[in-house]
């Protein structure tokens, strides 16, 4: 009896470990685009130091993005982005906590491309809002290429655009996410 219980528990642990497979990156990429049709210069930035962890067992997904990690073509624009708009000294990080809604449809251990929807809460500039984005997970040889794109209404996050440049900055920012996730050995 005790022996069978032992084997049962062993079995539980092993399956748990297998399902607890997690994937991560610290070098994910996010593209930020707030260019409006009347912007004199493109308002483009890229962050190549995005951290992301994905739990295959339940589809939970989290991102951490350092605001100061966004690189703009124009250094002055980057300065204003940090100092006046996102106030990165006060709010250094943006975070997303959510999950792949249709996680059951994804087989993380078989190569293939899966269309997914990710839903969760995005915290940026001290404000938290619900975000839902269509994305794609491409499983290949044990790594996952995760991409998604969505739009953010800057006003939702308390990012105010002053009157003088109101027509030069888009009120919504287009966000593109691209992460190559490797398996996380814990």
């Amino acid at each position, binding site marked *: 009896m005790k022996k069978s219980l032992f084997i049962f528990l062993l079995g539980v*642990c092993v399956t748990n470990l297998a399902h607890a497979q997690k994937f991560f990156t610290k070098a994910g990429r996010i593209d930020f685009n707030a260019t409006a049709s009347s912007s004199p210069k493109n308002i483009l930035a890229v962050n190549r130091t995005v951290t992301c962890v994905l739990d295959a067992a339940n589809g939970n997904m989290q991102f951490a993005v350092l605001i100061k990690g966004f690189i703009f073509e124009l*250094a002055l624009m980057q300065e204003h982005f940090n100092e006046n708009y996102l106030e990165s000294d006060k709010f250094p990080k943006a975070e997303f906590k959510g999950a792949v809604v249709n996680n059951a449809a994804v087989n993380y251990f078989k190569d293939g491309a899966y269309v997914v929807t990710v839903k969760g809460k995005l915290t940026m500039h001290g404000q938290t809002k619900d975000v839902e984005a269509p994305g794609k997970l491409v499983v290949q040889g044990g790594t996952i290429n995760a991409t998604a794109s969505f739009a953010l209404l800057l006003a939702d996050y308390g990012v105010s655009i002053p009157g003088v440049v109101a027509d*030069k900055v888009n009120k919504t920012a287009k966000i593109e996410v691209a992460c190559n996730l490797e398996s996380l050995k814990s």
Partner: protein
Amino acid sequence: MQSKLFALFLFLFFSVGVQAQDDLLSLLGEEKPTKERIKSAFKSPRVINAHSMEFLNPGTMDFRILHRFGTLDQGYKNFFGLDQASMRMSFDFGLLHNLMVGVGRSTFKKEVDAFIKYAPILQSKGPRSSPVTLAFVSGITVDGLPWADPTRQNYFSSRLAFYNQAILGRKFSEGFTLQLMPMLVHKNLVQAPSDRNDIYALGVGGRLKLSKRMALTWDYTHILVGMPETGYYNPLSVGLDIETGGHVFQLHVTNAIGMNERAFITETTGQWGKGQVRFGFNLSRTFQLKKPKLD
């Protein structure tokens, strides 16, 4: 023994279960704190007249147009000085995050000036950070006026003056920055035999942010040694910085007409108490010469 094993497995079982609910990001371990530079102590590399502790970003050029009008005490006759204008334009280049150079020309004495500014220490936070910025500026000015006395033997070196200054500054908070600038100005040729070639001075500059894009600024230079006996005063400027996208407007009143170090430190003839102050503005426009690749 077996009950211990049982407990261990129970523990493993639950710990795995708990971990799945936990903060996923914490699985990657704590991020190491990194040293981070404190930026935007001033909106511009100049307080008003004086160099600030701020540097241009590498790869950018700052095109500056500076105007100083006539003194306010002239009244309506000269439209409170606005009928007269003296200007300087300059091109400053950010080479490294702590190194910049610049060249300018003023209508006052048709003077050309150039400088190099370097900071061995930049204010930062995090491990091994510094609470202050220490910068050094070294500059030269070349007087371009015709010789006052063409009949005597004139040397080109007589047109030259030099200045060296240190800037010790700290951005105390998001809204408040203060800096001290001990400096030495050397003039190769002075007007009167009693005038000194070397002038030692101590400057104070600061900024108080009024809103995200507006700030109150001031700079004052106190001449310690070498002030001519009469007719010259310590320069004090008080202004407002307004930032609009790619431009910074610095509107101010000052008793100095000169816009390079030699001129405003050693040749300020206006007296604040007598209303001999001028309205002036600096217009700064930054251009990105070298862009980082985003792809």
